């Protein structure tokens, strides 16, 4: 059957009538899984995007080609988006004072200054 297309591939298909109504049902593209990519052994897995899949097994199969077909990759994780717990973006202020708490940082302790002062005092 010919569809009168310039595309031989299309001419092999049995296309429907123009104007035919085709609707996809909500949920037909399955659930959403977040994908984490490990570039080399020893590195963290990093979030790179998500895939739609019916279960974790196929999510992993899909993630492999969508997120690791080009660049270096040694491993992938997938996890259902619905299972991710995150802070609300409005809670950003909880992290606001982190930088002021210098007692958590090496830079908060001036050891050399004290040693030099001690040496000079001798």
């Amino acid at each position, binding site marked *: 059957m010919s569809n009168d297309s310039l595309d031989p591939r299309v001419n092999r298909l049995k296309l429907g009538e123009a104007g035919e109504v085709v609707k996809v049902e909500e949920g037909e593209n399955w659930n959403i899984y977040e994908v984490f990519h490990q570039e080399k052994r020893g590195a963290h897995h990093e979030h790179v995007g998500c*895939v739609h899949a019916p279960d974790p097994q*196929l999510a992993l199969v*899909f993630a492999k080609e969508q997120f690791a077909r080009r660049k270096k990759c040694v491993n992938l994780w997938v996890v259902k988006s619905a299972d991710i717990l995150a802070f609300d973006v409005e809670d950003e202020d909880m992290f606001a004072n982190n930088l002021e708490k210098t007692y958590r940082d090496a830079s908060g302790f001036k050891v050399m200054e004290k040693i030099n002062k001690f040496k000079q005092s001798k």
Partner: protein
Amino acid sequence: MINQAAIKDLIIKMADDELIQGHRNSEWTGLGPVMEEDIAFSSMAQDKIGHAWALYRILHEDLGGEDPDRFAFLRPEKEYRSAHLVEMPNGTYDFSLMRHFLFDQAETIRYESMQESSFESLRLLSKKVKGELKYHTLHANAWVMQLSKAGEESYGRMQQALNDTIALAAGLFEASPEHEAALIEDKVYPGEAELYRRWLDRIYPVLVKASLNLPAITAIKPVYGGRQGIHTIHLQPLLKEMSEVFNLDAEAGW
């Protein structure tokens, strides 16, 4: 000294299968059932065409064959050695998936058997494609299992697809009578009968787990002919398409 005519015959069969199967699978690129699967299936089509290219290069570089592009795309139909399975049009996705499952399991068995081949180029290639084929069979097994366990309609489709493809797939193991003994004796590979046995052993447990019924082995009548240059009506139109641009000017660079 390995029998050169026999090894050429073997490599042409393998390469033509991969070339045609790769083309068939590539027709799904952009039209798959869901974008994620479209991408995965396209990668595997590329891998197949890539394997074919590697095999034609072996013919060209080690065995005095023609330029890989000319050999792959500009032969008359009679000189192709592809099996009927790979020539069949894509049909619906169940057919394409089942063919992919049966073909890739066969391909895997074949390359595995060549990891110790006396013919170095095949030995090297079989090691190189190992990881790719692992993914292909992982993908194929996952789909066959899932769709066979996903309700009546889906199960029915998968069983029908298996019924429609099994004899065609068995035809992948059609031996070339004049060369087979030499290839086995020269330890190029263990021979088609042995590969067929290993393949059945490999697909059987997956099909059982998927609750699909494999016909009795003796009832499977392999569809032969492709290896002798006798093809289905579907091959010639595809070959015409594949060579269309080249044939505008076969001497030009494209």
